[in-house]
């Protein structure tokens, strides 16, 4: 009996000693969120619908919880990139957080060594919460976009799983009993049927399709059509990266997309920036809009939309080469020259915690954490939106931009081919322009990428989406029987 008591006492004592020993370790693993209290961080963000809806309120909450003020400079994408480039080029130590698309400038900034390696921060338990769970809780498509160069360090935390999808007017599809498209032929047929001239004056009241149609802006929205046709921005020939915009498949894609813009889109497609296109869709002027999925926040906004409750999103229809959802993710990064890197990391970690990202997700900001998609509190704006966004985040690849050092000129070159395609619709002219621009792109690669190994985009990076998945978002909204 005594022995038993002694054994219990000894075991209890041992446990106490173990707990006492473990306590400091546990405490060390806790993050002191007030450690950088009083610090002000300078951050440059790209304009997006989620900035006001999520980032600004979260910045206030972050300040309340940590005492760190985030001074947000929000600029239109082109201006934000230029400002970031100038500050990074000048090794400005007052810039602490940057918001960027890795598939756009990530390669260039990595090569230049402007971005801080975040792995040591991630590995440090005093800087990263124990349950942060990166990369295990990140969706596969998102992780595909985080590294764009062979051997690239972890210099960004990808957070946004925004995807280029097809917004559709469910009421119009139902009213005119039009098949919701699963392939590119059906997409053109639907665009044709839903270009509606109600009063017969030769000017449609509703246009069937809308997407970006001007210059360099087209690259992001066109990318899925390009890849679904079997085209691509680049290919590898004898181990060398060369332009592929003049291949038969790529020219097919340029012709197809330009044809949709020319025949079924409002003429404003040639002028508009994405927000103006989203506004046209929300005003009920078009039946389909090929754009980023977060724009559903506008079309479902009761104050600013005439189509509330009448829209959803589906995947861009499959092409001869399958379905490649374009996932132009957004990342956070820290400039190497910042004097407040620890506080900047604290902001990044705080913003990408599960419960904070959940708030974004619940506000129609598709995020990269897998767990927030599965959380019961998440109710997508429409079932189709939820399914299409999930599939894009799972299977998507970063094909939005021609990944290169001279990214700006590459985008201009691609835009030039599209301009000719939209204006002329003449295959020979498009092929000639594509050949011309391919030569320009190859010269740029020769000039700017000597000795570099851009990982770029490879279909092998993503799991190829099974054909059966294409209809999942359509079924989720019960639209699969239309047009039969």
């Amino acid at each position: 009996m005594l022995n038993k008591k002694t054994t219990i006492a000894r075991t209890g004592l041992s446990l106490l000693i173990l707990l006492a020993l473990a306590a400091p370790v546990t405490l060390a693993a806790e993050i002191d969120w007030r450690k950088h209290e009083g610090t002000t961080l300078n951050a440059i963000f790209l304009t997006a619908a989620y900035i006001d809806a999520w980032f600004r309120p979260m910045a206030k909450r972050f300040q309340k919880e940590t005492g760190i003020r985030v001074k947000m400079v929000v600029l239109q994408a082109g201006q934000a990139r230029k400002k970031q480039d100038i500050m990074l080029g000048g090794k400005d130590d007052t810039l602490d957080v940057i918001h960027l698309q890795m598939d756009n400038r990530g390669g260039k900034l990595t090569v230049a060594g402007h971005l801080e390696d975040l792995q040591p921060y991630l590995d440090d338990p005093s800087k990263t919460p124990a349950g942060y769970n990166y990369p295990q809780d990140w969706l596969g498509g998102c992780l595909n976009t985080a590294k764009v160069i062979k051997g690239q360090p972890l210099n960004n935390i990808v957070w946004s799983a925004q995807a280029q999808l097809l917004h559709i007017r469910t009421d119009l599809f139902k009213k005119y009993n039009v098949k919701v498209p699963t392939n590119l032929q059906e997409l053109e047929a639907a665009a044709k049927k839903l270009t509606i001239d109600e009063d017969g004056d030769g000017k449609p009241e509703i246009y069937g399709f809308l997407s970006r149609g001007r210059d360099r802006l087209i690259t992001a929205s066109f990318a899925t059509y390009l890849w679904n046709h079997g085209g691509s921005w680049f290919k590898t020939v004898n181990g060398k990266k060369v332009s592929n915009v003049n291949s038969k498949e790529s020219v097919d894609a340029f012709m197809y997309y330009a044809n949709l813009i020319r025949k079924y889109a409002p003429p404003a497609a040639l002028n508009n920036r994405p927000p103006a296109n989203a506004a046209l869709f929300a005003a009920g002027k078009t039946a389909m809009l090929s754009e980023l999925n977060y724009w559903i926040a506008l079309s479902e906004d009761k104050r600013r939309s005439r189509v509330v409750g009448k829209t959803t999103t589906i995947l861009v229809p499959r092409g001869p080469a399958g379905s490649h959802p374009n996932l132009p993710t957004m990342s956070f990064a820290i400039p190497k020259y910042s004097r407040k890197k620890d506080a900047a990391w604290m902001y990044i970690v705080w913003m990408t915690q599960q419960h904070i990202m959940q708030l974004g997700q619940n506000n129609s900001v598709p995020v990269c954490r897998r767990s927030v998609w599965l959380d019961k509190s998440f109710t997508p704006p429409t079932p189709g939106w939820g399914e299409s966004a999930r599939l894009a985040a799972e299977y998507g690849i970063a094909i939005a931009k021609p990944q290169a050092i001279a990214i700006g000129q590459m985008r201009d070159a691609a835009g030039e081919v599209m301009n000719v395609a939209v204006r002329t619709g003449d295959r020979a002219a498009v092929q000639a322009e594509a050949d011309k621009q391919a030569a320009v792109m190859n010269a740029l690669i020769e000039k700017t990428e000597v000795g570099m190994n851009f990982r770029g985009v490879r279909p092998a990076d993503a799991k190829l989406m099974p054909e059966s998945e294409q209809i999942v978002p359509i079924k989720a909204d019960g639209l699969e029987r239309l047009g039969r």
Partner: protein
Amino acid sequence: MTEKAATHQLHPVAAGASAKDRLLTWLDFNLAVIFNVPTVVLLAGLVAFPTGLVIWTSLTDWQLVLNKDPNFVGISNYVTIWQEERWLGGIFNTFYYAIVSLTGQLVLGMATALLFNRNFAGKSFYRSIWMMPMISMSVAISLVWAIMFNTTYGMLNFLLSGLGLPELAWTADPLLVMPSLILVGIWQWTPFMTLLLLAGLQSLPTDPFEAAKIDGASKWRVLIHITLPLMQGHILVALILRSIFAVKEFDTIMAITEGGPNYASETMNMNIYFNAFEYGYMGVSSAKGVIFFAFILLIQLVLIKLRRRQWSH
């Protein structure tokens, strides 16, 4: 006797003068130089140094983002830019915009100045309204014009459609984009031309006009043979001022077209901007900047020479 020696005679420092007296004398003697030092320092810092830096950068291959030390490449940037189709297009667009826009502004500016030089009811009110585009923010009015040019919901196409005319692609058509931008330029800057020319008209001597009236000259002949010749100097001043701004027009074009479509509205300074801040080619961009500066200088020299010749008459 030199001026310096004369000054010394006027302010002789007596032998055995105190240090204070010597300092005061020295200050008195060098006052002109001392007063000019801040201006010279300021000009050197704000004009000479940046200009020198741009010229030096134009001789290098500096790339903004790639974080590499610039290499000296001599005049190669100045040679290679002439092989760029887009740069040549930019030069053409710059002068196309400047010449057509200035011509329109001059003709309309003169017409409105003649109108406002007369007396009629509500003149001050109409003149104030007329001047409004000139005092508005360029980017703000450009964005309004961009909406008006919009091919789907723009007011201009609405008007054309109402008149039974075909709608135009305005800024989306490479052939129409420059005329569209010129239209905005004329709308915005004609009032400025009016202001300058109106000031000129109001300063003209009245005698020639009275003599012409007594001689029974028609209004047209008075305009051609008296008003315009007398206004030559004012017209040249207005052209000098406006040509500088027209050649370097940026904000309107950037806000409405960003140089597109197909670079059809890209001017020299937009090309410079894109090269520097979009592509990061600071060396090439600086070389283009120097060339652009030379173009502006040349235009101004020609106009100033014309003005001097006019004054000598």
